[in-house]
């Protein structure tokens, strides 16, 4: 059919159609269509991610200050050294970041797994439960954190009020003072927000755990823990790894919760919030960029681990 069309002489008014046809034919080749389909995404990656990232690298080696003329000079690694020499940076911000990230992610994984296992049981109104538990995760963080801020208020915390009424405590707990309760509160909110995501992803993964294997293991006399460790975990390992990595990255770079709940302050600052504060409210763009780049080694490690993992299982 196509041959017929090409054999006939083409009237001039049909030329546009011919050209379109030629383009179509040219496109009908994976070596052409492939790269073309990828263009929009690559524009974003190159123009809006790679380029700004390079810019961040450059900024971190300058003394750029917002609104100050005569800044923006190359200063080498001074910003990194200065930050590292700050006492608070080493003794508060870095440990906070590590505690916050690993503590929150581990607990999110644990709670998420527990919740997923519970929801995987046969029960009435399963779908309703699944939808409802997602709420903490889908509601805009800054809004739900405002609710938490109200619930953790020093004087009018409903949590304190309930605990007092149940005679569990007799004095208000100050959730948002430094250093420990504040960081714990922030972590608690992060866990509260992130657990549903873990639960839903892991629940989805649990659907493909082969029932026969579970039953076979049960007949072989494996108890609950053994069945979990030997059958369930290996099957859903890819999902655990991918979700945990994703969560690690997000938690490491998390700004919103701290920013809205405590407004930063050095007792709860994390690398990400400190960088945000330096860049956004303290005008030191160069140093802020440097602070955010302290996160970079962490990402490299995470990325490397995940790539290796995916490669091993034929990424």
């Amino acid at each position, binding site marked *: 059919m196509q041959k017929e069309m090409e054999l006939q002489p083409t009237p001039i008014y049909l030329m546009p159609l011919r050209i*379109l046809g030629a383009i*179509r034919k040219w496109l009908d080749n994976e070596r052409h269509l492939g790269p073309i389909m990828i263009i*929009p995404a690559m*524009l974003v990656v190159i123009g809006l991610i790679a380029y700004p990232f390079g810019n961040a690298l450059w900024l971190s080696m300058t003394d750029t200050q*917002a*609104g*100050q*003329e005569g800044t923006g000079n190359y200063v080498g690694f001074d910003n990194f050294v200065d930050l590292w020499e*700050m*006492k*608070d940076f080493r003794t508060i911000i870095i440990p906070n970041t590590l505690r916050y990230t690993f503590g929150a992610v581990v607990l999110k994984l644990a709670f998420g797994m527990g919740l997923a296992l519970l929801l995987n049981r046969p029960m009435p109104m399963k779908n309703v439960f699944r939808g409802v538990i997602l709420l903490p995760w889908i509601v805009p963080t800054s809004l739900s954190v405002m609710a938490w801020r109200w619930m953790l*208020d*020093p*004087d*009018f915390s409903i949590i304190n009020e309930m605990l007092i009424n149940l005679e569990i405590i007799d*004095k*208000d707990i*100050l*959730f*948002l*003072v*430094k250093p420990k309760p504040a960081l714990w509160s922030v972590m608690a909110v992060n866990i509260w927000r992130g657990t549903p995501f873990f639960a839903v992803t892991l629940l989805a993964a649990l659907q493909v755990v082969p029932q026969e294997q579970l039953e076979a293991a049960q007949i072989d006399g494996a108890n609950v823990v053994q069945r979990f460790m030997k059958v369930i975990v290996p099957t859903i390992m890819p999902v655990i790894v991918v979700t945990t990595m994703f969560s690690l990255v997000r938690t490491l770079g998390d700004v919103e919760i701290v920013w809205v709940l*405590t*407004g930063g*302050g*050095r007792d709860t600052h994390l690398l990400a919030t400190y960088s945000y504060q330096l*860049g*956004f*409210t*303290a*005008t030191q*763009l160069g140093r802020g960029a440097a602070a955010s780049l302290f996160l970079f080694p962490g990402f490299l490690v995470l990325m490397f681990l995940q790539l290796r993992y995916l490669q091993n299982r034929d990424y």
Partner: protein
Amino acid sequence: MSNKGMSRRSFLKLAGAAAAATAIPVGGLNKVLTANAQTALTVQLRSSFIPTNNELLTALLNDYAARNGLELDLSLLNHQQMAETLTAAAASGAGPDVLETVDIKPHQFADVLADVSDICEEIGEANGGWYPVARDLCVVDGVWRAMPHFLAAHAMVYREDLLSEAGYDAFPGTWDEVLTMGTELKSMGFPLGFALGHAGGDGNNFVYSVLWSFGAAVTDEAGVVNLDTPETRQACEFMQQLYNDAMIETVLAWDDSSNNRAFIAGEISVTNNASSILWVGRRDQVEFVDAISHASYPAGPAGLVQFLELNTIEILNFSESIEEAKGLLSFINSPEVWLPLGPDGFAFIYPLLQNYENHPAMPWNTDPKLAAFKGLAATGKALGYPGTPSAEASEVAASWIINDMFANVASGESIDDAVSEAHNACLAIYGQD
């Protein structure tokens, strides 16, 4: 055939959609859309806690804009957001044309602020002159970088009924007496409450006033960091005692709004605040509203040195309509605005022009409960005291160093540690380490 035709159409449609989606941001559609015959001005001013006051200001400015052919986009925000906005605007060279900030931002951002000397001198002359403290705040190297707007006037807020129960007819005049009284009040179940958390308004007003009243300060007059002094230790000792014996424990976690809530809920007897507590008390008709009263800050060993929360309005120098913005600024400080706005402002917005002090319509002259706010602007000090305002002083405040120092001693840290820690942090900011 129809099959193929459809696919071509769909492909083109998809490709077109994708192309359009990428094209929108790059084209700078925003500029195209807002380009208009009228002059557009984006203005951000500090909001009041009184909704009618906000509405009145909005109406006055919109009216002015309509008369002068301006397209005004006015938003009213609180001071924290505005500080963040100024930083970001300075960094990027874009943002609102006019905005209002608290404390000594004009010094920190002088490079990106337009020169407003002409209108400021003019306004000052026409209205009995600026208060010197306001002038110092805005004049950087001989050039006005901002127009003083208003003082967010602060005073001690207390409950007469509880004080008289404790045996006090009037609010005491020194911090030591406040401590004695507070101990008594706390034993009655109504402690004092002064914010020691990260509260940019009430917290700074309290901690800097205490620090200065004890003769201590971050720097000396020449701007050399001098925090680690016997006076500072004395202030810390006082704070430790005040916290342990007289204050509600929760102050360590307080923000600007906490004392308002605690006072209205009847949990505390004394705090420091703007007039918002009395205002809310009257709005909600709380049972002890008649007993709410204001008094001036107490004095310390070095006399009464009160911190002032001053608000200034800046024009960003990247603005394309600086002249129009200047016109608007002049209008904001003209009697056309102050005469309706001031009396409605419940002494929260206190003009920095001297001839309003004795104006009969102003709240501090009409409402006896608000008389304590009168005259503050003539005696109080701004950040940087006893030196001159500076960018570093602004950063010390933004880093909560003094607030944290007092909070640390209150929660039991040794005074030596807390003071030297704060001293070193200040040295680092001033670059004198």
